């Protein structure tokens, strides 16, 4: 029987409509602490904790905060979820709850259970320095509060020490997280499948190419909640073993290079961020992406494959991967093929990926260029969507640009390479005159539009200025 363990109690998924998200599911269980604030993963009022495998790949558990509004409840079959109610009670507050309460961290209280869960996830992170004053505030970047102005919430977070040894949530970390459970559920209108293997996933897609593939569901969940999307078949691929590799290997195509980094398309962005941080492979441009990519809550659920699969022209990963000359590996029952990312996007939310294909890996050639930068232009540094995103990977030898790769987001129907600008830079001295000349070319790249995020004129101006800024930094 399909079900989810919520706060230690088994809750059945029987009879639950398949479009039901985890938030509505736990609320229907009578656990109304988690709230719907926006239904699109922007506010974090719905944040809950899910027991996930530790990102270091060991057999331990990390309490991972997720936006419960974006995930189908069915995708949590066999998993363990803890809500704010499961952390403590009014009589026996959890340390996070205690700090939030006594420091004035709640006013209206509506966002508070979500903040508590996001804060608890960071409190329990195994590699967090366990003493007061060392709280990574990015853990709360996906939570909005309209009352406090955040100062008391930050103080509450900074006051947290390490969990006690007998803390049951801390103890739970030392054993393995629940494995992904192959799931097949059906209601009157639709089916939800979590296949047991990549092979099976590809077989399903070969038979039913109209299936909606989700790999974290942070985009699909928005369509379900805000646009009323209801897929007749949803296939979840995010936790398939075959999509979770992360390794640096010798290059298949070049013997002169340092090899390539192969990133499993089913890894979450948080997992990639953490693995990259402890890896011997240096990719500062990719590392610079993550803190600016949506919020921790989104990165905990979203996968790199999902980000490329949706093909959004304003996704933040494509500009970086374009500048890094990455490729994607596409697999189907017929075999695999590797496509340079620069040839992957074909139109607005369209790509060369056939509907029976899955992105299995993203391949980044090494070594990456040495002069790199990621410039994201948005209204808000945390948890915002780019107006313009620019990624630079330049090789400058003896004062001359020997190689230039520039990825752009938000200025065309697809992410693009700034080819004219690259040509204007390559072979020229890295000096004020050629930077200015190239900046003018860069300002003319793409076909930016006016929308609610920025004017077309501003977008163009920001393109040129991004190179000017890089040149003086």
């Amino acid at each position, binding site marked *: 029987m399909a079900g989810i363990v919520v706060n230690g109690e088994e809750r059945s998924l029987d009879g639950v409509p398949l*479009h039901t998200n985890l938030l509505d599911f736990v*609320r*229907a269980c009578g656990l*109304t*602490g*988690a*709230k719907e*604030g*926006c*239904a*699109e993963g*922007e*506010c974090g009022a719905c944040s809950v904790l899910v027991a996930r495998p530790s990102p270091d790949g060991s057999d331990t558990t990390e309490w991972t905060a997720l936006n419960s509004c974006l995930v189908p409840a069915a995708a949590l079959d066999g998993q363990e979820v803890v*809500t*704010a109610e499961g952390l*403590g*009670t*009014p*009589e026996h*507050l959890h340390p996070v*709850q205690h700090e*939030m309460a006594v420091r*004035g961290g*709640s*006013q*209206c*209280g*509506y966002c*508070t*259970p979500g903040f*508590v869960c996001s804060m608890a996830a960071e409190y329990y992170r195994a590699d967090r320095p366990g003493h007061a004053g060392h709280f990574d505030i990015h853990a*709360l*970047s996906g939570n*909005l509060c*309209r009352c*406090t*102005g*955040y100062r*008391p919430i*930050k103080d509450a977070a900074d006051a947290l020490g390490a969990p006690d040894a007998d803390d049951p949530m801390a103890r739970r970390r030392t054993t393995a997280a629940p494995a992904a459970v192959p799931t097949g559920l059906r209601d009157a209108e639709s089916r939800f499948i979590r296949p047991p293997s990549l092979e099976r996933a590809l077989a399903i897609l070969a038979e039913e190419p109209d299936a909606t593939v989700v790999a974290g569901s942070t985009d699909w969940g*928005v369509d379900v*909640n*805000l646009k*009323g999307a209801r897929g007749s078949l949803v296939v979840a691929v995010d936790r398939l073993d075959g999509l979770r590799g992360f390794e640096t290997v010798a290059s298949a195509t070049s013997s002169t290079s340092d090899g390539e980094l192969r990133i499993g398309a089913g890894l979450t962005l948080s997992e990639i961020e953490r693995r990259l941080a402890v890896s011997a492979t240096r990719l500062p441009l990719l590392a610079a992406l993550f803190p600016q990519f949506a919020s921790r809550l989104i990165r905990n659920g979203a996968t790199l494959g999902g980000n490329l699969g949706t093909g959004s022209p304003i996704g933040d990963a494509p500009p970086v991967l374009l500048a890094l000359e990455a490729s994607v590996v596409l697999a189907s029952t017929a075999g695999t093929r590797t496509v340079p990312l620069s040839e992957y996007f074909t139109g607005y939310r369209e790509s060369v990926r056939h509907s029976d294909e899955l992105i299995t890996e993203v391949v980044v050639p090494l070594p990456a260029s040495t002069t790199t930068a990621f*410039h994201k*232009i*948005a*209204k*808000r*540094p*945390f948890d915002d*969507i780019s107006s313009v995103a620019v990624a630079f990977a330049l090789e400058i030898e003896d004062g001359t640009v020997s190689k230039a790769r520039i990825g752009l987001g938000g200025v065309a129907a697809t992410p693009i390479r700034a080819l004219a600008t690259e040509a204007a830079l390559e072979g020229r001295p890295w000096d004020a005159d050629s930077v200015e000349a190239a900046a003018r070319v860069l300002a003319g790249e793409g076909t930016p539009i006016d929308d*609610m995020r920025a*004017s077309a004129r501003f977008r163009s101006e*920001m393109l040129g*200025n*991004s190179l*000017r*800024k890089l040149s*003086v930094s």
Partner: protein
Amino acid sequence: MSSLSERPANPVVGQAIEHESAALHVTGHALYTDDLVGRHHGVLHAHPVQAPHAHARITRLDTSSAHDVPGVVRVLTASDVPGINDAGIKHDEPLFPDEVQYFGHAVCWVLGETLEAARRGALAVEVDYEPLPAILTVVEAIEAASYQGMAPVMARGDAETALASAAHVFEGEIDFAGQEHFYLETHCALATVDENGQVFVQSSTQHPTETQEITAHVLGLPSNRVTVQCLRMGGGFGGKEMQPHGLAAVAALGATLTGRPVRLRLTRQQDMTMTGKRHGFHATWRVGFDDALRIVGLDATLTSDGGWSLDLSEPVLSRALCHVDNAYWVPDIRVQGRIARTNKTSQTAFRGFGGPQGMLVIEDILGRCAPLLGAEPDDLRRRNFYVEGQTTPYGQPVRHPERMVLAWNQVRESATYDERLREVRTFNEEHPHAKRGLAITPVKFGISFNFTAFNQGGALVHVYKDGSVLINHGGTEMGQGLHTKMLQVAATALGLPLSKVRLAPTRTDKVPNTSATAASAGADLNGGAVKNACEQILGRLTELRAANPEASWEELVRLAYHARIQLWAAGFYRTEGLSWDVTTMTGSPFKYFAYGAAVAEVEVDGFTGAYDLRRVDIVHDVGDSLSPLVDLGQVEGGFVQGAGWLTLEDLRWDTSDKPTRGRLSTQSASTYKLPSFSETPTEFHVKLLEHAHEDGAVYGSKAVGEPPLMLAFSVREALRAACAAFGPPGVSVELASPATPEAVYWALDEARS
């Protein structure tokens, strides 16, 4: 010291205690209206049919196909309304319209066994529209002379003559944006009907009495047949003062027609596209200064964007006019106000209620004129402060103007303003691509509802036989800590520990005829009433206490019961000494003024316009604080919300001629950005003004809900200073509002070109 303001020894008020519901908040146990749904059986869910036109006549409404959708129970239309088909108090807000007045206007409501069924039913409803011309912006409305409601003029002296003889005269205009409330809890109502036909509506409302009245008039019932309760709200900020009424009425109508509980909860998109926001304004002005940099005259016209119906636009406009002066003496002044009628949501109350908009005009004037006068902005502001004996343009004496100076000097000192101004200048000389700006701005904000009748409060205090106390009052809790303060007031008045006192939810059958919890006045009005009720009870115990000086409270209460002494009381309070003549825009509408001053420092990136709020220092006057932790939270939170309005929050409507004209483009959290952790100041120092006793309010306190929002003008002025630093000395910078990174970029680009 008055008996109202005097504190006994060892009072519970003044103690920095946590929010009374903090333990419930942090554990997820605190219940909000929508959390109650699972505690009812057979609940129906309501979903609107929203019109896809900014302005259109409905030529056909056919609900029959909705009934074919499985799970649809009923569709509510105008013909179902037994009473008055209107959701407002001005009778210009049809609940079920025959003419669509804004994009997203709810035409009818579908009730379903599930929300999914209601949603699909709403998609199935067939509506034909005849599109009509739509007015979207204030400028369009001015061109079309599309106005509504009053057009007041506030005048003193002869502004025309003063300007004609002024040494320096400047003129300008500004068009600035409104603000979405974005309370985290969207609007919600849950209505049930009992065996007697008594209608019970649980509503996220700041104004239960008006929700009750409008529900009753829609249902065609007397008020005694409708009870409204509000457990608590997940934020209100003024957005739940007028806007909940129609939604509650729809839920109640559904419940009376079906006999089943009806839940109506707006999604974020529905809430943003259907409910009113802070008014944006357009202003034109002429101002004159003398050679000593004193304002000698001001002539301004303020036009607010009222949206499609009057709502609270008239009192909002009154408060805007009453705050054009902010902290400054303007001897000769003429300010005209108008309310544009546009095809947008009906703009409404929002923290500050027009005050921030009025003050933005004068702060923008001073910020733009300072360089043109060769003056330092802080010096220009300080020179024009009110002094004792002066009156506001509407004729009210300015009480305690010295506290404005005190707050200003204290914050200037604690922020080390002069030293940091030098540091900022050094930084700016050394950094061609980044500039810092430092600014200090004042706030003077009038407390009380402009409309005198609203300045009354009620309470009900029960002392049970075991000595425990239960209080009820007319105010609602939306996170501002009102209930916490009321518990402290009751414990103080009765001389009991806080543990003896509990508080029950706000209900119209406990305390009737209440005013909205608004105008920052919740603690003043309800605190006065709670204190009054407690004192009535203590008064009745005086003789018994004299006869039993050693008796414990519990013993005293027991004796009182047996002596047949009434142990409960209804308390009442009205603010004394107020007057307001709306026809002449004169009087003394405010009991007192709240003062504050803020210093903000920003750093702006010359390549992108992106900025950092590096440090904020605030000294704010809350009188003698009733509850310092609560008040600190109000100051900090209000400031950040104000900074959001002025710098980040960007309401955009489609003003094109496409079929989507009038659609709110920023109707979700992914497109409408409010401050997050990244916008909170890196360094944030807030102090409450000391020795700030207020004689005219309960236990010497002052209202705190709204005034701190306006401290955020310091951020806007710091951004202006940073933009100016990219240009030559003396450059006057025009800055759009909100000053988003894009707006800041264009401002600095203009300054340096």
